[in-house]
């Protein structure tokens, strides 16, 4: 099934600055797997070391949160859009609880 994965701004730097990527996948998990295979740097931002989706990242198929569908086993169909929606806090340098500047 041809699906489009939308990459949010904070993660685009790890995906060659792309805002989306297209894959053939039967489930959300498969699509995310293709994504992190193509863009290895994304893996640690999306998944924990034991392969679970990080809790401050939400994934949607079209407009539905996969937590209320079948999570990573949610089936996908042609034309579906998978959105990755990470937690963001603001535009200041404390946005992610890091010190100002590096």
């Amino acid at each position, binding site marked *: 099934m041809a699906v489009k994965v939308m990459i949010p*701004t*904070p993660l685009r730097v790890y995906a060659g600055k792309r805002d989306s990527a297209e894959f053939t996948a039967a489930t959300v998990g498969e699509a995310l797997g293709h994504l992190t295979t193509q863009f290895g740097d994304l893996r640690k931002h999306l998944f924990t070391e034991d392969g679970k989706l990080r809790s*401050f990242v939400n994934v949607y198929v079209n407009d539905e*949160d996969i937590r209320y569908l079948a999570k990573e086993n949610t089936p996908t169909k042609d034309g579906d859009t998978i959105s990755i929606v990470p*937690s963001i806090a603001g535009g*200041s340098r*404390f946005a*992610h*609880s*890091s010190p100002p500047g590096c």
Partner: protein
Amino acid sequence: MSTKVQPLTASPAAQPAATTLTNEEILRYSRHLIMPEVGMEGQLKLKNAKVLLIGTGGLGAPLGLYLAAAGVGRLGLVDFDVVDFTNLQRQIAFGTSDVGKSKAQAARARLSDLNPDIQIEAFETQLTSANALELFKDFDIIVDGTDNFPTRYLVNDACILLGKPNVYGSIFRFEGQITVFGMPDGPCYRCLYPEPPPPGLVPSCAEGGVLGVLPGIVGSIQAMETIKLIIGRGDSLVGRLLLFDALGMKFRDLKLRKNPNCPMCGEQRTINQLIDYYEFCGVRGEEAPGPNVQVPEIAPKELKSRLDRGDDLYILDVREPHEYQICNLNGHLIPLGELPRRVHELDSSREIVAHCRSGKRSAEAVDFLRKAGFRKILNLKGGILAWSDEVDPTVPKY
């Protein structure tokens, strides 16, 4: 489906609800009054509404300005910060003459000038678990315009405990999220994000930057949602997450469900009081969040002496390309995120001095390289900012 207006309850210290508008108010708000969706009834609801703004910065500026313009009868402004020169790129409630002043006071002055008829209170205080409930209880709606995770969870929890709507907006670089939490059958922030990201696991470093106008758009949407809640019109963003991509100029709408197992607003509440949010977010105090890496360092003046003496030092710059364009020390640029992949470009037999903007990213680079076997590597203490302060003031600071 429109949402019900939050009933306005009078607290002991409050004025009795206004039932009329003065002639001057009728003239000021005439463009509201001639709309059937607002009318006298809606304008009176605005006059009797009490809204508390958490943060008077990028999001708080358009928020405050539009809520004051709309005639919200009582506005509270919570901000403990002072106006900084770098704020003026986006915090449009302030002018250049406000630099150094209390943000809450400067915002109050600006909003009072816009609308002297409304009551505006400045709370120059940091919002904490100790004061949030007391501060929130006299207001009807809380608007979250803050810039850090601990405060977001604090605002959420306080609103749920008190039963107050929380008009949420957040931004990062070119993206925004807006929704309304805290309505009776709606979700809360913890339904969306049960846990915050741990510090250290964030995109590059916190140098995300932001296009100044972005919080202007998102804050204005928050003001719009607040006004709609007050006058009880239109479809609220309760249960919907509005995503805004400014670069692509796209708005998207995702369904936000109330999590039945949410520890805060779910069927079995397990959180009954405000917690230590800094601990929850893994942040130890505001000054030094996240671990500081200890690595061998060189001070800018010493680096300068050694370069002047002709020492063969290899300068490694681990910042981003656009930072290199602002100013640089002619270093070899390998952004920190690319270092693992490009480490072969470095010669471990040479003495390397790594630098970034203020010394933190380069400390991580030095740590990484030492673990990779590099023995002759130093971190420029304080980064290019310290170089500007101590060696060459012509180098711009940013």
